[in-house]
């Protein structure tokens, strides 16, 4: 079968599997992103001054006991010459361990509020059939990451936080909006008109940092049933980091396992949703034997 049109990506899956199953991970992700925001707003929502989570994504205290701190911002603070104290270090360690296990860029697709904005831009881009735009290397984000760390040293200040759209959006929702709308609008238009997934997929140093954290993460998406792939291209169309799919999905002949090991896979699960043939599923990095090997073993066994 031939490739589907970009604007029709996912339609087949809805027909085959029903809307809910064809949007399961998307719904779960949006629920996750929204509930994390609501946790930080629990004070005024629940009243009585009771907060489930206080603070914001850079540092928080949940149930007055669990400290969480963004290791990236703490690293910048360290580079800026601040002497770190245990409370922040413990918080950052907990966050680090979590993302090392589940995949660093899980932060991007399951937590970060900017993801909602750029996903909408991407969806709209397909609907409006906007193609092309400026081309950036996806490695630009690592240059950005290095730049923010150098700036922290040079300015002895957490420089990136002055313009970081991730914390601007999250903080604005929780602590008051101000002019944050303009930044978010700028990101939205940038992604819509200038570059597909331009922010999250090419420039954002926060995502770059978390991708490094999740380099060896356990939780991974696997194209386990890749032999069923009918080349409809839906997964490539919806994937925010589409370069990550091909080695796993099309690597059988080269002896490459079906697990998507690229650190920039955000574990968003959208490919699982839109695949009408149920090629993808959540798995782990150790479950990466090629089917070829499995079948050989089966033949040898009896």
């Amino acid at each position, binding site marked *: 079968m031939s490739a589907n049109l970009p604007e029709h990506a996912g339609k087949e899956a809805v027909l085959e599997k029903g809307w809910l199953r064809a949007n399961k991970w998307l719904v779960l992700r949006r629920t996750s992103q929204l509930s994390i925001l609501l946790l930080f707003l629990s004070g005024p929502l629940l009243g009585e001054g009771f907060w489930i989570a206080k603070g914001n994504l850079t540092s928080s205290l949940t149930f007055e006991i669990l400290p969480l701190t963004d290791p990236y911002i703490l690293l910048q*603070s360290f580079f800026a010459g*601040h002497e*770190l104290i245990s409370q922040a270090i413990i918080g950052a360690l907990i966050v680090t361990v979590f993302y090392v296990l589940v995949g660093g860029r899980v932060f991007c697709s399951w937590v970060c509020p900017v993801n909602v904005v750029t996903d909408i831009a991407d969806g709209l881009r397909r609907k409006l059939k906007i193609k092309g735009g400026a081309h950036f290397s996806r490695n630009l984000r690592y240059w950005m990451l290095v730049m923010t760390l150098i700036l922290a040293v040079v300015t002895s200040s957490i420089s990136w936080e002055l*313009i970081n759209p991730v914390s601007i959006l999250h903080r604005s929702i929780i602590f008051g909006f101000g*002019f*944050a709308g303009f930044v978010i609008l700028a990101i939205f238009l940038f992604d819509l008109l200038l570059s597909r997934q331009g922010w999250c997929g090419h420039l954002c140093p926060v995502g770059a940092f978390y991708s490094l954290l999740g380099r060896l993460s356990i939780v991974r998406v696997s194209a386990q049933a890749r032999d069923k792939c009918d080349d409809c291209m839906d997964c490539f169309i919806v994937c925010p980091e589409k370069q990550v799919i091909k080695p796993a999905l099309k690597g059988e002949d080269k002896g490459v396992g079906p697990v998507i090991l690229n650190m920039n896979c955000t574990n968003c699960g959208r490919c699982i949703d839109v695949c009408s043939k149920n090629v993808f599923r959540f798995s782990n990095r150790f479950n990466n034997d090629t089917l070829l090997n499995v079948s050989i073993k089966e033949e040898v066994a009896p």
Partner: protein
Amino acid sequence: MLKHQLSRRRFIVETARAASGVALLGVGLGLYTHEAKSLPVYALRPPGVKSEDEFLAACIRCGLCVRDCPYDILKLSTLAEPVALGTPYFEARKVPCEMCEDIPCVKACPTGALNKKLTNIDDARMGLAVIVDQETCLNYQGLRCDVCHRVCPLINEAITLEPRHNQRSGKHTLFIPVVHSDKCTGCGKCEYACVLEEAAIKILPLDLAKGELGQHYRLGWEEKEKAGKSLVRPDTEHKYNLPEGLKYEHEGQGLMKDTGK
């Protein structure tokens, strides 16, 4: 071989391109960071901040201090405000610091940007109250406003009223409010309470409000007290070259006839 060279060339060009683009952004952001370090005079940091420079290296903009401030005094700066984005501050004239004894904002801070060593709120130095305008301060006019003195949490220590002769009326006393920098925490209660349209007493950043003596400078009377005696020799009596029959009386009578006494 040629192909190999081409791809190497492309790699170098692409790398240089990425690096220069990001460097451009970095230079801009660096210069902006430099600007963002200048905190406006009216914006006061929560207790436990030593300098704006150190604070901006340490504060991660989480807002936990804001959440734990029982009086909702602190706020995080938003975009287009002239305070470094996302950092906590308060404005004394709008709502001053209540100086909680347990200092919850400092306790809440996860990074030590608000220094944990601050355990007694009286040691906080958020700024320094300064009578910025003697021409409008009512007490300077001879009236008994005294409001800044009365609202001061360290009344008679951080702000005292010093009696001074009222030269205008010739028979009354001015009660001049005087701020003592060794006690003033910069909480801002005085600025908040000042009855004037525009406060005559304002909290200024310490480096702006304080002068500093040269390191070599010694005050004679202090040194005298320390030493327990005068450190200079008493003046030698001045010798006048006077006409015969005249003398100079040093006790106050001045030039007089020398009668030989």
